[in-house]
């Protein structure tokens, strides 16, 4: 007789999680009618499950960051095309890399580059073009209150950041601001030379484990007349942007990298 089989703790969980056979489910239901304390417990477990859904389901329905979409597409492509075609894709990406000045040594490297491009370089160039052209309010907090600026930005980025001193190169700090970046906060510092030419340094967190090969390697990217030099140090990514020749901007980037 099924009635003789005792209801176990496992049964109760399986009942809650919809993993019981119909027959066994009926047995548990009968058991719960006779055991109000277990019934209360299961109801509370059910309420907890609902709260977990409420808390985390929003993540599943929120927009997926661009870099992740790209990575997932690459994975799908690799899967669909099999291993042979994978080599072809890697070769195509490599060729694309040569043509565009990007280094794409492998599929994984190109993935890394596309991450840096989408989340560090392009947002930095965009933020540069928005704020350096703003005559009345290029920065949120000016350099006179540098300590306050640094504290505020460090607090919001949840890591200690610095504004490099570029006066040896003729650029003085004007100030900086907090900017929303792709799924992260970013900080922008703005510098100006005596002729009013402006350069920005953009800082944000990037992954702790990724981009091992890019560690401390200075890379460049050109976009619509703007030149971006970027690198990574620890968990932070840095991008120096300006409408300058490569040598001048390189000097600024090297100096900034030394100080940050």
């Amino acid at each position, binding site marked *: 007789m099924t009635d003789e089989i005792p209801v176990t703790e*496992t049964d109760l969980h399986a009942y809650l*999680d919809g993993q019981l056979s119909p027959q066994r489910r009926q047995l548990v239901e009968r058991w719960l009618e006779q055991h109000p304390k277990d019934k209360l417990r299961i109801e509370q477990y059910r309420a907890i499950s609902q709260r977990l*859904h409420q808390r*985390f389901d929003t*993540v599943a329905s929120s927009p997926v960051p661009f870099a992740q979409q790209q*990575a997932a597409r690459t994975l799908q492509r690799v899967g669909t095309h099999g291993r042979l075609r994978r080599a072809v894709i890697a070769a195509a990406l490599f060729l694309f890399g040569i043509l565009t000045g990007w280094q794409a040594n492998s599929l994984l490297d190109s993935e890394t580059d596309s991450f840096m491009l989408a989340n560090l370089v392009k947002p930095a160039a965009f933020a540069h073009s928005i704020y350096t052209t703003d005559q009345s309010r290029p920065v949120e907090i000016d350099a006179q209150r540098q300590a306050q600026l640094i504290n505020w930005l460090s607090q919001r980025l949840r890591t200690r950041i610095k504004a490099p001193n570029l006066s040896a190169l003729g650029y003085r700090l004007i100030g900086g601001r907090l900017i929303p970046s792709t799924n992260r906060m970013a900080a922008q510092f703005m510098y100006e030379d005596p002729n009013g030419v402006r350069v920005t340094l953009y800082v944000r*967190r990037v*992954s702790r484990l*990724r981009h091992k090969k890019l560690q401390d390697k200075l890379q460049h990217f050109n976009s619509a007349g703007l030149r971006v030099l970027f690198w990574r140090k620890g968990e932070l990514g840095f991008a120096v942007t300006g409408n300058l020749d490569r040598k001048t901007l390189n000097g600024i980037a090297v100096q900034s990298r030394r100080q940050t």
Partner: protein
Amino acid sequence: MKKNEHQVLEHLPGLRRYAYALCNHRTPIDPEDLVQECLARAIARFSQWQPGTDLRAWLFTMMHNLFINMLRKAARETTGNISETTEPATAATADPGMDDLDKALQTLSADQRSILMLVTLEGLTYQQIASMLQIPVGTVMSRLSRARQQLRDTLYQDENRGDPTGNSKAKSNATSNNSNIRYLK
């Protein structure tokens, strides 16, 4: 090879949800980093996936293992400061400003939290989880049971006060008894 065998994009929302559910306030790991790193690793190791097997389980297992490795690495890097990350915190040490669910979740170990989320959010069967994590079903059950009991103790402690039989001690002893668990296999 059938095309619909590996619709990675389809699994991405679930993977992202799992990442957020794994990383809590105390975890020195960013869920967005976890997802990105998991995908990068999946691309690099795709040749290890057996066509015809469950791609979703493969991806979730990869994320789970990656998470545990990142936790260990973070614990090593901080040389003791966060070395208790794989161990549950007591509710008393939780940061202020979190709601009661956050605080309750912080009392779970990484293993308990992981299994609870796979069951509750992803709807995986106990058997699936056991083979994913390569542990016996009995271990899955005892961790699940302890996780739920722990959350209930924290969230409903006022309501359940003065109800010694409904409290955790006796019940969780019973669940760690393997003979009790083998019933359902």
